[in-house]
Every structure is written in structure tokens, then in C-alpha cells.
């Protein structure tokens, strides 16, 4: 399909290299929306609030980084909620906590991230071996993750007492919390992977024209599994970060992150059909979504209406971004 639209509808493209006009939409939307809120509310444009937005964006940014790779392949991933729940419980039970005597520190964090990898790998294997569409495979894995998390929860909330993990959410460096810096590092790593590794480029290429890769003798399946595994690692880290924020391991740590991460990625310009967009696009999308959420509270929109207004603006933002590219015989799924 992607090959179709690329070849059939865009035989001659103006720009040959680098960023194109198409990519400008989301950043412009970000600036415009930020400008509107800044004009409406003095609190919104305060330094504190900007810090707050960035801090609040940290977890979503990490999760979205992971999901972006999957979306670039043209697949979808709804496993974030389950994987994050499982990883949150794992890390809170492995670092110093009130449930047991474990105090593994960084090792515990590593274990939680690895668990995320394992779940991601499971999704990938279900996709390539059982040929289950990623939509369902990841939905299933999410349920499994929640089940595993509930097992570990066992009725008593594990609260963390690990000073390092707690400090992530509290300590600041150059005005931003450690979590925000971790998110920035994740985006950078994600960008490096996307730009400079075979895994990242192949993920991109799989979204562009999977059958061509096969014809060129590339074994696609391992890369698909690897991409899901990589995404799982990001979700695992996301779960750890939520635990750090909340000071406790919650089964619901990842609630809602699956859909908001997809929204953020799409708003940023990553296509659900794959082959377009990337980490930096997603980062812009995350900021856009967070600015929106925060701004609506700051200007005092009624809590009843916030969700609706947010949905409307997201649709409008995407609509505005696609208008310059509208064509008669365009395929939109």
C-alpha cells in the first residue's frame, strides 16, 4: 500500500534531500498553540510552567519513542499499558521497597527494562511466527502484562524507598528534572538508532516497502521482532519512570499511555501506514499534546470539556497538517 501511494501519487517530488515542507506542519502547530495559550494565560508562559510541561512530557516522550519505531514499520503497538504495569511492579519489588528486602538499585531497573524487552519480543514473535496482526498481538501481550503485574502486586502496594530512583523525579539539573533528561537521552538514542543503525533504517524501510527488502535478500522477520523488542525496552523504562514519579509500583502505571503515545506520534507526523516520520517528529508531537493538556487546565477550561476540546484540536492539527498534501486520488486509510 505504501509503495502504491508513494509511486502512484508522488512520482516527482520537489525536495530531494533533508526536511521537506511536509515536515513543517507539526512544529508550526506547536508554536501556534503555544502562542495562543501564552497569550491567554500569564501563568502558562511562566518558566515554572514550561518546566512543568517538559517534566510531565518525560514519560510520554519515552513511550512514544518506542512506539514510533513500530509505527514506522507500519505496525501498531497497544502493549504499552500492560508492559509498563509489569515493569513498574518489577522495579518496585527489586529496588529498596516496603514489601521485601531487595535493594538491587540499577540492577533492578535493568531487570524491569529487560522484562519490557521480553514482552516486546513476545509481540514480535506472535506477529512473525503466528502471523497475528500487530494490533491484536500487542493487545494480547498487554493483557498478559497486566496479568503478570497483578500477580506481582498481590494485594499490597509496593512503595519504593530507593533514594536514587526517587531522586529521578525530584532532583533537577539545569531546571529540568532528571526524568526529563532521561527522556531527552532516550530521544537522542532513538534518533541515533533511527539514523545510524541498520535496525532503525530497516524499520523505516519495512514501512516503505517490505516486499522489496525480501527481494533484496534481507530477512525481515528478525528485524521486526527486534523493533518490537526495542519498543518494549522503552516501555519498560517508561514503567520505571512512572514508578519513580509516583513513588510506588502501580499495575495501572501505563494506563492510557498506549493511545496517547500513538496520538502524539501521529500528531507529530508519523504515518500509521509506516515509512514516514520518526523520533524527532514524535518528540514534537509529544510536546504538542502536553502543551494542549496543560494549556487547557491553565486557561481554565471545564474538566468536563477538556477531553473533547483536546480531541477536537488534535483532529484539527492533523487536518491542518495534511491540507497542503491533499490530492485527488489519494489513499487515506
Amino acid at each position, binding site marked *: 500500500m505504501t509503495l502504491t501511494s508513494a509511486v*502512484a501519487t508522488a*512520482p516527482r517530488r520537489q525536495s530531494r*534531500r533533508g526536511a521537506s515542507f511536509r515536515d513543517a506542519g507539526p512544529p508550526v502547530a506547536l508554536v501556534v498553540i503555544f502562542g495562543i495559550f501564552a497569550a491567554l494565560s500569564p501563568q502558562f508562559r511562566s518558566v515554572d510552567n514550561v518546566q512543568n510541561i517538559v517534566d510531565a512530557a518525560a514519560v510520554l516522550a519515552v513511550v512514544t519513542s518506542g512506539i514510533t519505531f513500530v509505527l514506522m514499520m507500519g505496525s501498531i503497538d497497544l502493549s504499552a499499558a500492560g508492559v509498563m504495569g509489569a515493569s513498574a511492579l518489577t522495579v518496585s519489588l527489586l529496588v529498596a521497597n516496603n514489601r521485601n528486602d531487595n535493594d538491587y538499585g540499577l540492577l533492578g531497573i535493568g531487570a524491569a527494562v529487560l522484562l519490557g524487552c521480553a514482552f516486546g519480543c513476545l509481540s514480535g514473535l506472535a506477529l512473525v511466527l503466528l502471523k497475528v496482526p500487530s494490533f491484536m498481538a500487542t493487545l494480547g501481550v498487554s493483557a498478559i502484562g497486566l496479568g503478570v503485574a497483578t500477580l506481582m502486586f498481590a494485594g499490597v502496594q509496593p512503595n519504593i524507598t530507593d533514594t536514587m530512583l526517587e531522586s529521578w523525579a525530584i532532583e533537577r539539573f539545569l531546571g529540568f528534572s532528571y526524568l526529563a533528561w532521561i527522556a531527552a537521552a532516550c530521544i537522542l538514542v532513538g534518533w541515533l538508532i533511527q539514523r545510524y543503525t541498520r535496525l532503525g*533504517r530497516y524499520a523505516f*524501510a519495512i514501512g516503505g*516497502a517490505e516486499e522489496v*527488502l525480501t527481494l533484496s535478500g534481507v530477512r525481515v522477520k528478525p528485524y521486526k521482532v527486534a523493533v518490537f523488542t526495542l519498543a518494549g525496552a522503552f516501555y519498560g523504562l517508561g514503567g520505571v519512570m512512572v514508578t519513580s514519579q509516583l513513588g510506588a509500583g502501580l499495575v495501572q502505571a501505563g494506563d492510557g499511555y498506549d493511545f496517547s503515545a500513538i496520538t502524539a506520534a501521529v500528531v507529530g507526523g508519523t504515518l500509521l501506514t509506516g515509512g514516514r516520520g520518526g523520533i524527532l517528529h514524535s518528540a514534537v508531537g509529544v510536546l504538542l499534546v502536553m502543551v494542549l493538556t496543560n494549556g487547557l487546565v491553565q486557561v481554565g477550561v471545564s474538566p468536563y470539556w477538556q477531553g473533547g476540546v483536546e480531541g477536537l484540536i488534535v483532529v484539527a492539527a492533523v487536518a491542518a497538517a495534511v491540507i497542503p498534501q491533499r490530492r485527488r486520488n489519494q489513499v487515506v486509510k
Partner: protein
Amino acid sequence: MSVPALEVRGLVKHYPGVKALDGVDLVVRPNEVLGLAGENGAGKSTLLKALVGLVAPDAGEIFVRGEPVRLRSVVEAANHGIGMVFQEQSLVPNLTAAENIVLGSEGSAVRRGVYRWDTMRRLAQEQLDKIGSDIDPLARTDSLSFAERQMVEIAKVLRIEERSQHPPVIILDEPTSVLESKEIETLFAQIRRLREFASVVFVSHRLDEVLDVCDRVTVLRGGQSVGEVATAGAVPGELHKLMIGSTGSDDHYHSGAASLVAAEQPRLSVRKLSGRSFQEVDLDVAAGEIVGIVGVHGSGREDVCRALFGAEPTTAGEIRMDGKKIDLPHTRAACAAGIGYVPAERKIEGMVGAMSVADNMTLTKQKARCTGPFVAPKKQATLVDRWIERLSIRTPGRDTAIGRLSGGNQQKVVLARWLVGGDIKLLLLDHPTRGLDIGARSEVYRLMRELAGSGVATVLLADSLEEAIGMADRILVMSDGRVVAEVACPNGGKPSPLDLVKEMV
């Protein structure tokens, strides 16, 4: 004689109900260009797939430089020095040209999974240099023109030279079917250059091209090699005879058929039509007339064609059918006005591969198979069977998925789609014979003549200048979005291709 670069002995491949290969023999010598000719269904594509490891033969042997080999994948074939440029372009559109060139054999450009863009660029440049192309290796592939992409494909295939450490065998499957004549010339120059260090297997439906560029031609028929012709001094008719087993019709374009050109009001009349890639196009087509539009890539002729079908927006100008002004905001309006369109990208835009012949044929003119708002299965069956017979479409049945038919039969179904309603006034044919073999082409030509004879006006974007000249009554030449010349093309007074080329540049 030296050891053949590639040799095939007694290759057999069965598919359910079909014997695609029935003991094919083939010899490719070092530094020669071998032509492979045969009608659709002769087994060409199966043979080629077997040579690059995409199809496992049931029996027979393949030798590379005298050694028997088993090719189980594209990678294994490449390691033995066999590479293929596929009929449908096999490039990843959203990667750079360089990545496409090294795809699957990145070598030193990727170390431990990490890209080294400089090395990659250098490796790609080396390949592009081999064919003397000046494409920027870091350009995104979807920003390149079609011909440029073809060059990238060839550069990509040439990578196997480094991989196998031997002179490669390059298979070109229908490389010219979508190229304009100038681009074809460039390609032929590249093929001759390739011969210096490689062997080439060249497959094309255009026999003149085969004779032009090849040293030797092997002809396949019914899954067997039925003859070998040295090209020096050979004529297309001879090859054609071998291919179909008898002398082909001399009058390929059926030009004897009467074309009736009514003088009065033109059926289609276009004035000062402008759009994204064309300006102020004037065009008249009378009932029964076939008007060819020629022009290089970027001349805007495809977009004019799509605009006439409502699939491309226009900014100014008017379109009249039988004198009545019509608006074409979408393709529905065009269909309702009696306009039909056969797109160039048949597999993507022309048909729905997973749906049946019957469904594809009746997709547009639903009324033809319905009673009131309901589909009448009997009516549909009669209708579809009638057209299958009338166009001699070879299909196991009307319920077979169209994707399983050969290209020529697919195209006939696509054409039939516009005919079943019986209300077609104007046909827009965008490369209607692309990828078809001689036999199928000839049938499509006959059909076009027949339709013209019954009063249908036709706009033809031909596959080649020869085709345009052979089929059209009049030819418009487009360049940079404008009509720059009009050449009369009556029977008995046909212009030569050279006359047209002069106008195109």
C-alpha cells in the same frame, strides 16, 4: 569455447494444473547479452525466478561457471553472482539511493549494525560510476524520476560483482516497458557497457529491442526452449514465428480496419485546460478517432489524461462532450458521462487483484448486472461469460481472482469493465499494452480498432512511438505541459518516429 557463465539444463517446474517449465535449457556465455523471448505464459518469469532463487525447480540443474549450484534464496543467487532487476521496480521509496544500492549487502558500510554513511555513499557512488550515472547517492529514492530509479536498480544489481568476486550475470526483466525512447537509449548504452565485464540476460516484449541490444536470443515456448537465434541479420518476424509457432500477422496494428472519422462535431472537445502540470491544453477527439499523445516523462500527458477522467484537479479551461459542457469533480462524474480510463499501473490502479473477474468487470457499470438495486446473479453470469468469450479472456472461470490471470487477460478484463455498460463514448488509455506480450498486444489493438469502428473516441498514451504511430489517426506532441505540435497520422501517410522525436525535444 569458454565455460558458460550460467547454464540451465532440463529445468522443470509444476504449478497446480500447469507445467510452467518443461525441461528448459539455457546457456549464458561470459560477456554476452542474451535475449530471452517468449509470449506470456511461455515460462520466462518462472525461469528467471528460478535463476535468482525465488522458485525451487522440481527437476533439472543450474550450473554457474561449470559448477552445479542450488539456489535457495536471492542471497544465495547473489553470492553466486546472479542478480536481477525486477519488472516492477524493487526499490524502497523512502530510503536513499545509496541505501537501496547496498541493501542486503551493506558490507563495510554497516559495521556491527551501525551505519557509516560516508562509506555507504562511497560504495554507492562506485556502483553508480560503473554505469556513468550522476545521481546523488543520498537523494531519497522517491524524489528520483522513473528512469533515474531504473539506473539505481541496475547499480544495485551490480553490487553482486563485489559479492561474488566473479563477473556477474545480470538479469533484466522487462526493463524498457516503462521507459521513454531516450531513456531506453541510455539503458542500452549501459547494457553494452555491462557486457565489458558481465553477462546480461535481457527480457523484453519488444522484439526490435531484443534484436538491437542482444548478441543471441533464446526463445521459450510452452516451458521449453524452442530455438536460438543469432541476432546479426535476424528480423523480428523470424523471432515472432518461433515464439508463437507460426508466422505472426504482418499487420500488427490492424491498420486495415476502417477507422471512421466523423467530421462534424467532435465527441470530446477540450479548450485551454490547465492543471498542476499542464497548461492551456486544446484537444479534440471525434467519435471513432484514435488520438495519440506523445511526450517524454514530465510532459504532463498522464495528468491531462487523468484530468479528463476527473482524477486530477484542473484550474482553468473547459471540457465538452458532444458539445455539452461537463464538470468532472470526481471520477464518478466522468463514468456517468461515458468516459472510461485504463490506468498505466494496472496492478495497483487498474484492478483489484483479490476480487474475481466478474466483480472487476462489473465494478463500474453495476447497472449491467443488476435488476433494480439488486445484483442478479444470473444476469451477471451471462454478461460476464459473454464478455469473457467475446474478448477471448483465458480464465478458469468468472469467479477466479483476477490477480491469478496473466497480464494480457487482466488488461482485457479491465477494458471489458468499460464496455459491459454499452454506453462508453470516450476511452482514455494510459499505456494499455504495458507489460503485455505480442499476442496480447495484438488482441488489445484489435479491440481498440473494433471500438473505434463502433464510434468510441479514444485517447491513447502509447507504450512506444511506434505504437502511437501504428494506432493513432492523429498525434499530439506534448512538452513541458503544453501541446507543442499536432501530426496527422492517416493510413498510408504515417510519419516516422524521427519526425515525432524532432517535435518532442
